[in-house]
């Protein structure tokens, strides 16, 4: 699968409409959405490009983190005073009003840190779409990466260049991160 040649069609910054058309054309040629990936320097929603919705586990990881934070807070609030009971200021050992502060802070801490962990883990996990990159993407250009059978080559060229794209074959998968 990794042997397959990755094509990259680069569109100019303002050619969003053309990109959407190109994606339509590629689908018309029998290339499935799974084999296409769009990269861009500014965010475009899936709806603009007519692409299937992407999914992410970040919200679930975030909620899981919040639950962990809540449980830790419950232990700190109501567990630790029992482990070593010390009376202060005529208060009960386990005070409910003050517990809200701890619950809030630790739940939020869990939520926010795990959101970041979610982003981090998903970012460095391998992606299954066609890899490939071009520095012009961060100049705002829109890139369409796809795998296509060799017999489609002439047709691809005609359609995509007709829409104003620049086509790069076998775009090198440069090392973008540490490993």
């Amino acid at each position, binding site marked *: 699968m990794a042997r397959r040649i990755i094509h990259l069609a680069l569109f100019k910054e303002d050619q969003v409409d053309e990109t959407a058309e190109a994606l339509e054309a590629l689908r018309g040629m029998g290339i499935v959405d799974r084999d296409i990936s769009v990269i861009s320097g500014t965010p475009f929603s899936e709806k603009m490009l007519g692409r299937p919705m992407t999914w992410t586990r970040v919200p679930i990881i975030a909620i899981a983190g919040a639950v962990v934070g809540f449980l830790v807070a419950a232990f700190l609030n109501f567990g630790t005073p029992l482990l070593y*009971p010390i009376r202060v*200021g005529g*208060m009960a050992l386990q005070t409910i009003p003050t517990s809200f502060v701890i619950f809030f802070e630790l739940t939020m801490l869990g939520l926010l840190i795990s959101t970041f962990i979610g982003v981090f883990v998903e970012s460095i996990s391998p992606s299954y779409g066609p890899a490939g990159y071009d520095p012009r993407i961060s100049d705002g250009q829109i890139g369409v990466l796809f795998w296509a059978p060799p017999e489609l080559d002439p047709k691809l060229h005609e359609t995509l260049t007709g829409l104003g794209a620049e086509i790069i074959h076998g775009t090198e998968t440069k090392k973008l991160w540490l490993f």
Partner: protein
Amino acid sequence: MAEQIKEQVNERWGMVIDMNLCTGCNACVTACAMENNIPWVGEDDAGYGRGIYWMRIQRYWEGEYPETTPSYQPVMCQQCGHAPCEPVCPVFATVHSEEEQINLQVYNRCIGTRYCANNCPYFARSFNWFDYSYQIPEPLNYYLNPNVTVRRRGVMEKCTFCVQRIHAGQEQAKAQGRAVRDGEVVPACAQACPADAIIFGDLSDPNSRVSQAARSQRSYTLLEALGTEPKVIYLKGEGTYGG
């Protein structure tokens, strides 16, 4: 849990200070300093307001000059039942002792946030701004009381009702197989008071001298409206001896 604690509690130490008898002589302040290893901070710092006192004589002037009369009031930690200093400490360095029903300061646990001192409406707390224990010249360090911790720099300290004397009294009574007798435990200030203005004892025993004195019509506590439930009770003076 609560019942267990209740069983342990048998004494409720308290103090009555009769303002009619107090002459403002400062003997209690001196005795307290010697008993509790209270450091001498030096002239400059004491003048700047850094003197360490576990108790002090508050002196107010009443009347217009030249018709003025002084009024004296010894004030120390009031050993509050609902102490405002306790819950604010992040590390439980000041806690309510279930055993003696007083308010304790754990020097080794203190990290020096000074929150408790702000929150004490009686200003009963003193902070070790510098390491004063090193300033004691050579032979003088023999005055230090071995029963009391010498505090280092950066910790808060305050009156403990001479808790070391309470413990000594309790242990002696226990060794002889009896209850602590009224008047057996005397803190340094009460012992030193030449006018016998300071009465110390067990408030839970209705017949103790301190309980009887506390039932006087003249009795009041400092800043009663704050609801701190102090264990130090004052007997209002009639201005006879400047008290």
